[in-house]
């Protein structure tokens, strides 16, 4: 890029930065009064093409390109313009393509490169303007035209947006891909730009546009419904004001009652105690006396809620202390295995002259048998000897057990 362009560009941007207050003032208010600002500043801004005077005697305004730049970057909701002038852009693209072809034919590659750069700019510009148009539309749909207050205004905004959508769709039809393909010819960069890129952009935009249109129609229906119900309410108030004696007709006396008015009387009525009735006093006080009061120790529960220390360490070794009884039982089992015959537990105890309580011993033996694994239990068989309890049916008193191998 040549030096003068760089310099003037920087000058413009510097001017925007230095006088941002003036620019933003003009953006927000739409115009700028000359009394409240420095004449010198305004003049230089005018010279740079940032401000302009539409007609002599009018106040200064922001140039539309600066305004649209600000609207784009600030995502201002009030920007309602959709750029729909695709035709002009297409014409430019076609012209630049012809330039490019001509340059290529004349072997002016450097020239062709410049044209290709220009073309790229144009095509991307076109797709960007389409995309930002759709984005802008959706933004307005999403806040339901929140920037205008009355429903009537919303309906008008919606209708405007719908018109713009239709216009955009019409413009999209101008993108004739067979023509563009022919124009691109066999050149790869041209095909990539004009066919692939534009086609993607076209299908994306048209898809979004049709869904936006559907949403707009839905919103319009909603707005109309709001409007209708609010008119209904206002109409009702007006009617009542004009005819103060007005009473709606009683639907209860009509032959067929609309289900709307068919509301049954409550069977379960809200009830409350009448404390003023002296007769009930004794009953009530008896009820009150019978109420249980539950005192939960809240303090204790608070403690429990607090985090508890968790000790993380090795699990202590679990060792079972073999007591005498246990050893005796094991001996008894070994005896049974050695003898391979049934041995009575009581007999074993007296033989070994063990000094246990009989009941305790028998329990220990039964326990020892039950404590075996299922497969080990299969090897043994246990008989219980005893008698029925004289008084309680089916109560069997075990006096001795005999263990043997199966």
């Amino acid at each position, binding site marked *: 890029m040549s030096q003068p362009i760089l310099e003037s560009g920087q000058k413009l941007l510097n001017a925007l930065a230095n006088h941002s207050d003036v620019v933003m003032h003009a953006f927000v208010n739409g115009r700028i009064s000359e009394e409240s600002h420095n004449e010198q500043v305004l003049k230089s801004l005018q010279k740079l093409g940032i401000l302009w005077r539409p007609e002599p005697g009018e106040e200064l305004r922001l140039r539309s390109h600066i305004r649209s730049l600000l609207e784009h970057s600030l995502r201002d909701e009030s920007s309602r313009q959709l750029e729909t002038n695709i035709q002009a852009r297409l014409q430019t693209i076609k012209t630049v393509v012809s330039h490019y072809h001509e340059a290529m034919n004349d072997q002016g590659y450097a020239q062709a490169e410049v044209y290709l750069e220009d073309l790229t700019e144009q095509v991307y510009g076109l797709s960007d303007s389409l995309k930002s148009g759709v984005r802008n539309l959706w933004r307005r749909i999403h806040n339901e035209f929140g920037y205008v*207050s*009355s*429903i009537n205004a919303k309906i008008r905004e919606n209708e405007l947006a719908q018109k713009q959508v239709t216009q955009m769709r019409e413009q999209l039809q101008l993108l004739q891909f067979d023509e563009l393909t022919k124009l691109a010819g066999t050149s790869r960069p041209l095909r990539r730009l004009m066919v692939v890129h534009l086609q993607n952009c076209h299908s994306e935009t048209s898809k979004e546009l049709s869904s936006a249109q559907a949403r707009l129609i839905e919103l319009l229906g909603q707005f109309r419904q*709001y409007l*209708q*119900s*609010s*008119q*209904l*309410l*206002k*109409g*009702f*108030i*007006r*009617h*009542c004001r004009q005819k103060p004696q007005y*009473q*709606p*007709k*009683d*639907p*209860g*006396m009509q032959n067929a*009652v*609309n*289900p*709307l*008015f*068919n*509301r*049954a*009387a*409550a*069977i*379960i*009525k*809200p009830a409350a105690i009448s404390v003023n009735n002296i007769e009930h006093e004794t009953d009530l006080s008896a009820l009150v006396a019978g109420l249980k009061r539950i005192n939960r120790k809240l303090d204790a529960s608070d403690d429990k809620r607090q985090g508890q220390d968790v000790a993380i360490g090795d699990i202590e070794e679990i060792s079972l202390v073999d007591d005498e009884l246990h050893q005796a039982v094991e001996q008894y089992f070994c005896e049974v295995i050695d003898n391979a015959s049934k041995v009575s537990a009581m007999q074993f105890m007296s033989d070994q002259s063990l000094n246990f309580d009989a009941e305790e011993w028998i329990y220990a033996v039964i326990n020892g048998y039950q404590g075996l694994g299922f497969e080990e239990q299969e090897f043994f068989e246990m008989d219980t000897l005893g008698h029925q309890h004289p008084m309680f049916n089916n109560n069997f008193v075990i006096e001795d057990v005999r263990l043997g191998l199966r």
Partner: protein
Amino acid sequence: MISMHGQVMEKLLQGEFICTVSDEVAFGFLQQAEAADKIEAQLNQMNRTLVSANDGQVFYCGYQTLGDNERKHLSEQFKDIGGALLPLVEWLVLVQEAQGDKALLTAGKVIRLQELQLVIEDTPAFSEQLQKIARYSLFNSTSISSDGQLKQIFKRLLDLGYLLKPNKDKQIFIATGKVDYLFDVIRFIDENEKLALAEQSKVETEQGELL
């Protein structure tokens, strides 16, 4: 613990409206055809039936067959509704206008009392309107301050079941399905008596624009 069926039955027999705002679980329960059939069978034994209004958005209990007594009850009830219509409608319009002519209050919409109060107190026309509404016997407020009037109106609307207050400590209210029911009632009266209310108000606004 009482079953869902029992809870819904109790609500219906108390004459309550069941909508998604007031009781979402019960409403979902009634939307199941099987459960609704059971409730209906039980209600039928008491000459009651399950009625739904506003495109199935509200359920309540109605009479199965209408005898003289039932008709009498409906007439009395309608007299109450008819008397309450104007204050309620005026209140709805006030809320709508105070909130900047946005959408009308419908089931599930939220009203923040403080915001409403600020707008009403700042606008003399609204506070005048509020004063008028608060004096209706439906709301029966004797307060002179708009704060007291608003509180009384909201309290009454809570009692009548038009609004719900989800959080006891916050002045935030949600409109129930009963508000939509109110619209249905007005729409019905409008159609039934051929009042053409919406057209009347349209003419009025057009005339207002001409002036």
